[in-house]
């Protein structure tokens, strides 16, 4: 491996933050305090995670690995819920959708022999899956809220004609699932052309042959498509019913 980052080079790289701070100060952006807090938090959080992962990888215990994966899923669910803007039961819906999307995707990857059940592989991959699922579900919630308000009259008319909740919400559901998946689809289209994504860049950085590195990236692309589609579909199908009451009336 030809990785050359050490504590000294990190200290020198801190100069880059000083450039950002200088720009903020010169342009009177008023973000100096935020930036310093951000940098300090990032450094502390990453060091803590780094040491934590190091010990978890060393212990290599099934239950500890599963616990960490569940913590990642809970945090992702909690963050997705924050974007729900008051959709009832958004926390269990988000956690359920992320849990299933992560489990199915990890399961397929393991069955295919692409990854092994070892913490060094399971934890980072779970994090990637859960975070993408989280972003997709957040977008779904935002779209559901916006569309139910925008299409309120059409939904009411469909209900008035005797449509069930699914028929009355079908267009909104379809649009929301699409919105959740769109960034991953766009990412898949431009991968390698616009960006060299994290997984691939990391491997190349670590000295892995680029041809071998792209195979991992192809796997990541497949897995993110699966995770965001499962997460979006489940979250949308569980969440849309919360826009209605027991009498099947629109609550907005």
């Amino acid at each position, binding site marked *: 491996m030809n990785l050359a980052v050490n504590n000294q080079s990190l200290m020198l790289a801190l100069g880059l933050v000083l450039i950002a701070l200088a720009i903020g100060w010169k342009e009177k952006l008023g973000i100096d305090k935020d930036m310093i807090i951000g940098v300090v938090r990032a450094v502390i959080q990453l060091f803590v995670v780094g040491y934590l992962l190091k010990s978890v990888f060393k212990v290599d215990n099934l239950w500890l690995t599963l616990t960490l994966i569940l913590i990642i899923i809970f945090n992702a669910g909690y963050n997705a819920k924050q974007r729900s803007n008051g959709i009832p039961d958004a926390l269990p819906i988000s956690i359920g959708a992320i849990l299933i999307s992560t489990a199915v995707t990890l399961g397929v990857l393991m069955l295919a022999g692409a990854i092994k059940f070892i913490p060094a592989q399971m934890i980072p991959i779970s994090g990637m899956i859960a975070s993408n699922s989280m972003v997709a579900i957040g977008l779904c919630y935002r779209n559901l809220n916006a569309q139910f308000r925008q299409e309120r009259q059409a939904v009411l*008319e469909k209900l*008035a*004609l005797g449509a*069930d909740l699914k028929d009355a919400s079908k267009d909104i559901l379809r649009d929301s699932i699409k919105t959740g998946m769109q960034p991953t689809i766009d990412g898949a289209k431009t991968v390698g052309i616009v960006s060299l994504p994290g997984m691939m860049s990391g491997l190349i950085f670590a000295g892995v042959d680029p041809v071998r590195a792209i195979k991992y990236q192809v796997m990541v692309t497949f897995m993110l498509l699966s995770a965001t589609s499962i997460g979006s579909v489940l979250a949308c199908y569980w969440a849309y019913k919360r826009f209605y009451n027991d009498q099947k009336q629109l609550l907005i």
Partner: protein
Amino acid sequence: MSLIELVDLGYHVDDTCILKEINLTIDRQEWVTIAGPSGSGKSTLVRIIASLLSKTSGELNFDDDPIELYDPISYRRRVSYSFQQPTLFGNTVQDNLQFPYDIRQMPFDRDRAVRGLEYVGLAASDLAKPVVDLSGGQRQRVALLRNVMIYPEVLILDEVTAGLDEANKAFVWSMIRHFNEDDGLTIIAITHDQAEIAAASRLITLTAGKIDAGGAS
């Protein structure tokens, strides 16, 4: 025997009373016109009858049973509500006339749709017409047809002729008269139109959430 019966029906949101002590019976195939100033609760009343809102007090009986006993979806297929400025769904006229069949998982009755279109002054070829190309009057006719593609028992009309010119108004009312007289539909129609109010066979006037004393004729 009355088809719809409202007993001391009330509706309030938090502390605001929208409707109170509404007592009303409507017989099968009756035509009831509801009038009253803006904000008097007319639309709220008919939305409660259409099961798009739930009363907060009193009783609402349909066909001798409390509304609570009905599944809201099947009830709305019997008591259909038509909006003032209807939204047409999908892209074409057919998308709209097919919707009532789709939600019942029934095959689309094209012949009936064509007969309906011809009756309202459109042609079979208009099935493929984009909804954005319809005039205001045509939109209202297609929306009304959509409500009656599969006949309900009650048709609730919320100012469906507002904004239409006299010719279109007359046409829409002749359509509704046909549904009422020839096909036996019960009609509940909200209107602000003085001519329609004057011609009403049974008029209910609402003021500040109550039926006017002597306002029911």
